[in-house]
């Protein structure tokens, strides 16, 4: 449902396993840990000596994704089971549900990403995987809607 109603409780994230099967990792996502969606554009400084105000043009964009997941070794679907094969590339999908689990029309960020890091650390006594993704391939990730 459209509106000013996108809360973390109804965020969902999935990433392909190393065999290309999409896996919903939301149940293992540590609250407050995910940074996903959107682009940060390089600022290319165009200031000339005689200009009075700094001004810029945009350069290339960056769209990294970071998230912490519980080290869940449940067969097939646990985050550790899925992500332990790093590095590999797959489809990453992030969806924002409006007051409920994501449904048709809700915002979605999706694209091909490479899983570069799956470091393990302890957060509040819990074993967690620190996952880092970067866009992969020439087709950039993009905003869309849940279909």
């Amino acid at each position: 449902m459209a509106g000013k109603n996108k809360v973390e409780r109804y965020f969902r994230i999935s990433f392909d396993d190393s065999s290309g099967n999409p896996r919903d990792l939301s149940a293992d996502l540590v609250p407050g840990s995910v940074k996903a969606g959107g682009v940060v554009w390089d600022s290319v400084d165009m200031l000339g000596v005689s200009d009075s105000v700094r001004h810029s043009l945009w350069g290339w964009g960056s769209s990294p994704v970071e998230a912490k997941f519980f080290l869940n070794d449940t067969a097939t679907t646990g985050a550790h089971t899925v992500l332990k094969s790093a590095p590999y590339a797959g489809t990453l999908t992030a969806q924002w549900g409006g007051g409920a689990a994501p449904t048709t029309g809700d915002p979605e960020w999706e694209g091909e990403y490479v899983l570069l890091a799956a470091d393990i650390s302890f957060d509040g006594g819990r074993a967690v995987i620190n996952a880092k993704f970067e866009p992969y391939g020439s087709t950039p990730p993009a905003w869309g809607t849940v279909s």
Partner: protein
Amino acid sequence: MANPGKNKTLRYLRVFCDGANLSGDARAVGTLKNSCDAVELTGWGESIKNSTWGWRTIGVDGFAALINDTAVSGALTVMQDSGIDVVTFAFGGGDEPETGDPAYLMGTTQLQDMVGWDGQAGNVTANFDSLDEASNPIGVVLSPATSVSATTNCDSVDNGASSAYGWAANLHVIASDGGTWAFTIEHSSTGAFAGEEATLATFAADGSAIASERQTGTGTVEEYLRAVLTRTSGTVTAVIALSRNTAA
């Protein structure tokens, strides 16, 4: 047998360094690294920077343990002089690590043995870098830290689809009464272990003394794995873990 799930806490992390279980002295650990460099491949005609993976970094930062100078097994005794070669971290699921639980294992160069204070308690801190070409530190416990006095076929572990890129395995003999043992790892495509299995790894250590050993190998690793502890005499506690190399 392992208890899989979202239940891996620091309380049940166990660490084996060479022939010692340092878990009783362990206080903290930083990051167990498993990451690759981002190699940017962006061309002028592309709008979003994109990357592939470069070299992998494996290692452990900030492992800290109490200054314990007990002979043979105390953390200071083991960690001083930066001589640790074989390290395995085992993640228990709500209990002591069991066969099938996740493990992080490496052959290592210990980079430091700095001494300091943690809440007025003396501690010693080590960083571990990877020593060999094994490409994946993420593995599985095949033999837990359980004392055995008879030939033991550890539980079979379904370790996922077979792989073709080789393997690495760590052995930590952390207790021995001087008896003689043989330590092997077997693999099977069916998991029956009824004669169809093959030996994947054979450790040279015979269990007659505290010891550690790391083995690596090439080629195929079948889906099912098990450790076998074959007794000639005595009682032993031997921790075994294995990781499969990845394509990258």
